[in-house]
């Protein structure tokens, strides 16, 4: 969670400074959700992500250094500078990609779950979608397909309250949980700022999937600290919304309070993790800035056919 936070804060700063090209969508504030889910997964389990994919990548153990280079569009980035922020992927880690298409991931995850089922790998596949994507037909088709074929698939609707700039209160009819239940898929709502709540819901869903019990849905209510994209002035949000979130519901703060109060971890140890992570990310930024750009020779590699 700390890694995601530091990574996103650094990307936010670098984008503001003009060093990062293109579109960037930050995950800061939603850390407990991605981490609470992905802690149950290993490299043989797959996830498909959203526009807001950095957090999912890191939670799935993608290399932060290669990710930073990718976001800067550099040759040695995780995807050779050809994917960028919106398409970061690492299949070797079971990360099937952030997706530039809203609702693009759930059908792909049905496929990954079908592979797991057919080859009997014991793997599960998780589709993260936002509240915006939850209205796409692909998502409903995937609920249906996953249920009909009894696939080890988990759908996580990360609802940060806004589909771009449009409130989910306006754009989502009914409830996410009822949508899942409509397909006879076990569906729960969790406070996505609460790592332990997410972790527990995910444990159940993952166990069910691995045991052949079919798909699950988790409606994770999360908070988005930044705009839909970097540079978004967020004119649609009340002025104090983010500051209130940060003061009252910050997932890192909630986690720290819970584990120190329970005597599980020392505050000083957590400080040390934060300091080290900050340094590591700062180093990644320095290296990403200095890293070489791809060249013309890279333009036509990895197309299947060149003319």
């Amino acid at each position, binding site marked *: 969670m700390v890694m995601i936070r530091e990574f996103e804060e650094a990307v936010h700063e670098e984008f503001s400074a003009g060093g990062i090209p293109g579109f960037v969508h930050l995950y800061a504030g939603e850390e407990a959700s991605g981490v609470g889910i992905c802690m149950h997964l290993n490299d043989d389990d797959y996830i498909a992500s959203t526009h807001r994919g950095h957090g999912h990548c890191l939670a799935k153990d993608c290399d932060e250094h290669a990710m930073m280079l990718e976001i800067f569009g550099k040759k040695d980035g995780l*995807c050779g500078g050809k994917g960028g922020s919106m398409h970061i*992927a690492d299949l070797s880690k079971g990360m*099937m990609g952030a997706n530039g298409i809203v609702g693009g991931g759930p*059908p792909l995850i*049905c*496929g990954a779950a079908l592979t797991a089922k*057919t080859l009997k*790998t014991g793997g599960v596949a998780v589709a993260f979608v936002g509240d915006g994507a939850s209205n796409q037909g692909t998502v409903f088709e995937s609920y249906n*397909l996953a249920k009909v074929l009894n696939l080890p698939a988990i759908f996580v609707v990360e609802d940060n309250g806004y589909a771009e700039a449009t409130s989910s209160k306006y754009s989502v009819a009914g409830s996410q949980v009822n949508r899942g239940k409509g397909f006879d898929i076990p569906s729960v709502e969790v406070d996505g700022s609460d790592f332990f709540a997410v972790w527990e819901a995910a444990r159940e869903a993952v166990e069910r999937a691995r045991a052949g019990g079919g798909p699950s849905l988790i409606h994770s209510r999360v908070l988005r600290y930044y705009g839909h994209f970097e540079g978004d002035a967020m004119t649609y949000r009340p002025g104090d919304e983010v500051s209130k979130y940060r003061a009252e519901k910050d997932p890192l703060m909630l986690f720290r309070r819970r584990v120190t109060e329970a005597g599980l971890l020392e505050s000083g140890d957590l400080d040390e993790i934060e300091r080290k992570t900050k340094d590591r990310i700062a180093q990644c930024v320095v290296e990403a800035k200095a890293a070489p750009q791809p060249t013309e020779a890279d333009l036509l*590699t990895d197309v299947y056919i060149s003319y």
Partner: protein
Amino acid sequence: MAKKSYRQAISEALRQEMERDHRVIVMGEDVAGGAGAAGEQDAWGGPLGVTKGLLPQFGRERVIDTPITESGFIGAAVGAAATGLRPVADLMFVDFMGVCFDQIFNQAAKFKYMFGGKATTPVVIRTMYGAGFRAASQHSQCLYNIFTHIPGLKVALPSNPYEAKGLMIQAIRDDDPVIFFEHKAMYDMEGEVPDEAYAIPFGQANVTREGDDATIIAFGRMVNFANDVADKLSKEGISCTVVDPRTTSPLDTETILETAAETGRVVVVDEAHPRCNMATDVSALICQEAFDKLKAPIKMVTAPHAPVPFSAALEDLYIPSMDKIEAAVRAVTGKSH
């Protein structure tokens, strides 16, 4: 060699590849047919029976009927391909691709490039195309041109049973996404097909006739029309080279340019609509690379720029006919009746 239909040839390719590699699965609407219904065991095998017989041999785990949700199951096939299976998904009619095009051109086609070469997507999407079935506007289009336009897709257009088996086997063994176009009016066409498995490499055109007077480059079902025209004209002493590119992506530009240059007179036959199709593409290629070898303007024979009509009388006029191809050859060669 045994005579087999186009339908049998494709079915045999699927069966042999499923026997060879347990990762090959078949999925789509009614590919078995009757899932959950009383007549479940090997009911349909697709609306035209191409996959009939696969269910009893391979079971429901590998012959998977899906709901009629093309975005969902085509996307699932793409996801399964990216994670270790080799799915052959049936899009049934290419006309239905509108609702799942995103999964094909934004996902399947881009994974390898977008992910820095670290992904393969060995999915085959079978689909029916073409007019002649009285199936009207929403079940008769060609549309292979659209897929050909997208980098990251391979597009196969088998013109007879032999080609169908060899190209399908290649498609399944290929590590990249392949859109496999089957002309619905050819399923009963018979031809010699070896029993053993064989793959026809992509991007290698087949020269089906050789001649000196004109080169006819034709696609898919139109290759057969072109062959018949060439046979007919040869009796009058007009000899034609006929080129079947087999795949529109990759396209064998070398053979096309060579054969065009040899005769200097070119007719391109494409069942698709006339704008931005394979005929215009190939004509532009020849004009760019071999203009100095041309002895006459290139002629294109295509369908008109209209949806496919239902009326038999109209549909027959719609499809590029042998008469039109013959007229085009006569025009470029300057040899009238």
